[in-house]
């Protein structure tokens, strides 16, 4: 049985920080579809549209009937362990540092047998549940889990290389003035984070929920205004070396399309928070987190961006805000590419209309700040990188995947009220 994770000791200041090394990164173009799905927490394999057989590894034609019509389908996650080994040597530095390492052959209910990482609670030749996640290199891999939940399951050291569990980690929430920021702090407390730094801009302005926020165990309120480069740099100077998870809860949302704006002041405010704010955070906190991707059980592990799903495709009712969110989404892709090599995951949670004042006139279904905050915690615990949250976001994401150009036309037909 997996031992419960112990609270990591204070860092030995005389020891050099372990540099991040990576599991193998190279994949074929075809296999990247597996990675993209794994980043969403989905387990997909290629299924032949003609003969229905499932194949693995990724191919260009069906090896049974030569049909080129291979589609990536979600697969049943059940399987049977057939063989397993404990590797004690590896030619790869990342694994070498983490030996011994269990891998095994799983006969999937879906058809193929695959090589997979094995959770410590999986018994020889037992039934397993196989999930796909991105590993420290950012590429999709499979891990076989015990069929039924076991005590301390999340604490398995091989599984933990695929997840970003907040347990015992130190989290920065960039804006605690909002319900969302405060809910995120609460969710991190519940998830076992050891310290939750909460940034508050303009402390000279009161905000609701201040007392309750300050009373949460482990919460430290610190000045942070992501529209102010100096403020961001000063906070990074203070806590940048111990920020394991950064959750950017700051957003600036105003209804209105571009012609409804007189001038760019509001749009610039949106960009200042949604785009430049993110950029400032990246420049101040990114390098430190990237260097600490392998720093023990409380290594830096995740950067969480909370973005409107209209970052994917503009909704003119919130036209300029959508544009700033699109800029932020694009920047998050840049960040993900920059973080590759560090083991720090960039998590984008794309949400549908949030239940807060700037989206007050929007009809339901809406996502409550608490739901979004809980999703952040779950997403980190599961090691997922991309989530569409809420029925609206799921719908937009689905259409986006089907055809982004059609989605644009569809969104242009949705008017407010």
């Amino acid at each position, binding site marked *: 049985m997996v031992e419960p994770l112990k609270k990591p000791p204070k860092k030995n200041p005389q020891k050099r920080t372990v540099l991040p090394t990576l599991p193998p990164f190279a994949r074929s173009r075809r296999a990247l579809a597996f990675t993209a799905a794994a980043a969403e927490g989905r387990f997909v394999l290629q299924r032949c549209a003609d003969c229905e057989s499932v194949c693995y590894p990724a191919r260009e034609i069906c090896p049974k009937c030569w049909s080129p019509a291979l589609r990536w389908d979600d697969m049943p996650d059940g399987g049977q362990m057939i063989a397993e080994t404990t590797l004690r040597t590896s030619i790869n530095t990342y694994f070498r540092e983490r030996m011994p390492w269990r891998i095994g052959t799983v006969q999937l209910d879906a058809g193929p047998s695959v090589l997979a990482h094995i959770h410590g609670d999986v018994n020889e030749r037992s039934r397993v549940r196989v999930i796909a996640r991105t590993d420290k290199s950012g590429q999709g891999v499979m891990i076989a889990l015990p069929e039924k939940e076991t005590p301390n399951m999340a604490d398995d050291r091989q599984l933990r290389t695929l997840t970003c569990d907040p347990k015992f980690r130190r989290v920065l929430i960039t804006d605690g003035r909002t319900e969302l920021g405060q809910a995120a702090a609460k969710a991190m407390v519940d998830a076992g984070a050891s310290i939750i730094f909460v940034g508050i801009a303009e*402390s*000279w*302005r*009161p905000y609701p929920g201040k007392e309750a926020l300050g009373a949460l165990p482990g919460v430290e309120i610190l000045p942070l*205004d992501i529209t*102010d480069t*100096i403020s961001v740099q000063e906070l990074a100077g203070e806590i940048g070396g111990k920020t394991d998870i950064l959750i950017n809860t700051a957003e600036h949302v105003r209804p209105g399309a571009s012609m409804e704006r007189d001038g760019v002041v*509001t749009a610039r405010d949106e960009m200042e928070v949604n785009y430049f704010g993110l950029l400032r955070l990246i420049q101040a906190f990114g390098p430190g987190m990237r260097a600490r991707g392998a720093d023990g059980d409380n290594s830096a592990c995740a950067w969480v961006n909370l973005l409107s799903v209209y970052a994917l495709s503009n909704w003119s009712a919130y036209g300029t805000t959508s544009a700033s969110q699109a800029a932020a989404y694009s920047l998050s892709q840049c960040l993900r590419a920059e973080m590759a090599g560090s083991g720090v995951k960039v998590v984008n949670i794309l949400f549908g209309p949030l239940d807060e004042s700037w989206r007050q006139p929007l009809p339901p279904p809406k996502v409550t700040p608490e739901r979004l905050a809980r999703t952040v915690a779950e997403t980190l615990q599961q090691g997922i990188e991309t989530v569409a949250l809420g029925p609206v976001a799921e719908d937009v994401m689905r259409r986006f995947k089907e055809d982004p150009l059609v989605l644009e036309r569809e969104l242009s037909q949705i008017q407010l009220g």
Partner: protein
Amino acid sequence: MSKSNRLLNELGTALLAGDIDTVDLTHTLDPDFPVMILPPEFGQCARFRVEEVSRYDDRGPAWYWRNFSCGEHTGTHFDAPVHWISGKDLPDAAVDSIPPEAFVGPVCVLDCSRESAADEDFLLTPEFIEAWESKHDTIPEQSWVLMRTDWSRRSGAEYLNMREDGAHTPGPNSDAMQFLIDERNIRGFGTETVGTDAGQATHLSPPYPAHYLLHGANRYGLQCLANLDKVPPTGAILVCPPLKIKHGSGSPLRVLALVDRRPA
């Protein structure tokens, strides 16, 4: 030597001799300095921000410089008459067209610090002004009048003193403004708080009398002043030229007071 030459010579001599104090009435432009908060659906006052362009580095090896940005009403700042709707059509009412002599002149400081300490919503009244005049003489025409509240010693949330029903800070009532304009013909009015008006001035009639009446009469405003306790009730000279911004509604500025140190 002409008369005016003599006058400025005397001033220069006194300045060099240290007989005249130059008192800085300005807060440092700091990104975290409070600004006026309006209901969020309105446009907001931009905060003061700085971005480094280079600092003896690859962006500029031998020099350090930055871009700054802010609103016309950020930090210690000057309000021009065009700032308010009541002054929108007045002549010479923007910072670039205001006659420069308006920026240097005599100043009276009305000490309301004790009253403001006792009552955050203290309102300056004609009666208070007349009582002050009974001690210090009548406010001369074309003077700057500054309302000392010691509010500049407050910081953070205390300064804006914002509650759910808005800010609670002292300021003038409508009658006081009307009195200063009509009866005393002042040049401008200044405060230590974030605006020339009281925090609850939206509930006065007219709302925001310091803005509405003062600017409607082509007079000027100064706010976020500091160190008013170092300026005597009468006899000092105020120096307050704003940036010459084309059709500017106001401007951050450095406000100085020249104070005679010699015993009367």
